[in-house]
């Protein structure tokens, strides 16, 4: 089986064991699919290959783990119908990396049980108020600094905000500095910033 890793442009060095298939002007990086029982291990290998491509290419569009094909003809057949769209997306992420931000913490300011209906409603609204406040004071300024941003829908506490930002490779430090500065306004919450990653979250259109 052949595994598809990424689409690239301006690749200066191809990591060992990989090869490039050109489909309608688009360079697809493939390699033998490794059989690995441990999915976390498989994910790490996949991630390391993509990060290596990011370091050696002008633009890289990561492919989700598990896109395996019988042969090169099958890769070509799967890529060709989307080659135009993927080329455009590859252009959008040229010279950019992804920075991830997660905000985790206790939502409620007090552990007291509400005494009446109004108190109950206020407590039920707390996560949404906190989320809105974070979107305004943390996410919005970071989004203005980024070329693009993706925010995960509000799931369950304690994960209050999870967002990814597409940032030009040269401004990662400035972006991280601003994230740290903005996070200082929320001492009760844990704000983590990870990256730079290849632009995984910007490889497909928004849902």
């Amino acid at each position, binding site marked *: 089986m052949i595994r598809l890793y990424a689409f690239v442009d301006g690749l200066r060095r191809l990591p060992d064991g990989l090869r490039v298939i050109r489909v309608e002007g688009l360079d697809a990086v493939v390699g033998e699919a490794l059989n690995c029982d441990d999915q976390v291990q498989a994910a790490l290998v996949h*991630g390391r290959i993509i990060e290596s491509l990011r370091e050696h290419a002008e633009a890289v569009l*990561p492919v989700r*783990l598990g896109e395996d094909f019988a042969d090169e003809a099958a890769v070509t057949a799967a890529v060709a119908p989307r080659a135009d769209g993927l080329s455009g997306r590859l252009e959008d992420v040229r010279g950019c990396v992804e920075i991830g931000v997660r905000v985790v913490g206790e939502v409620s300011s007090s552990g007291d049980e509400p005494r009446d209906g109004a108190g109950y409603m206020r407590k039920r609204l707390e996560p949404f108020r906190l989320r809105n406040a974070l979107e305004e004071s943390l996410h919005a300024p970071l989004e203005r600094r980024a070329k693009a941003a993706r925010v995960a829908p509000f799931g369950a506490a304690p994960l209050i905000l999870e967002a990814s930002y597409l940032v030009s490779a040269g401004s990662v430090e400035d972006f991280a500095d601003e994230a740290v500065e903005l996070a200082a306004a929320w001492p009760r919450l844990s704000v*983590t910033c990870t990256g730079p*990653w290849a632009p995984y979250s910007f490889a497909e259109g928004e849902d």
Partner: protein
Amino acid sequence: MTALAAEDITLVDLVDRVLNKGVVLTGDVTLSVADVDLVYVGLRVLLASAGTLDRLERER
């Protein structure tokens, strides 16, 4: 935050991206790692880190 905790967070973030994001061509990819579990593990790590930070702050 200890170096180990930072590494764990990075691991969770990377695995989350590799399994849940990126270009999808065939659309029928099924993976045996539940992202819910991964996120859960990640949150425990993050919460532990926040607690560690608090303790360090108090001890200062």
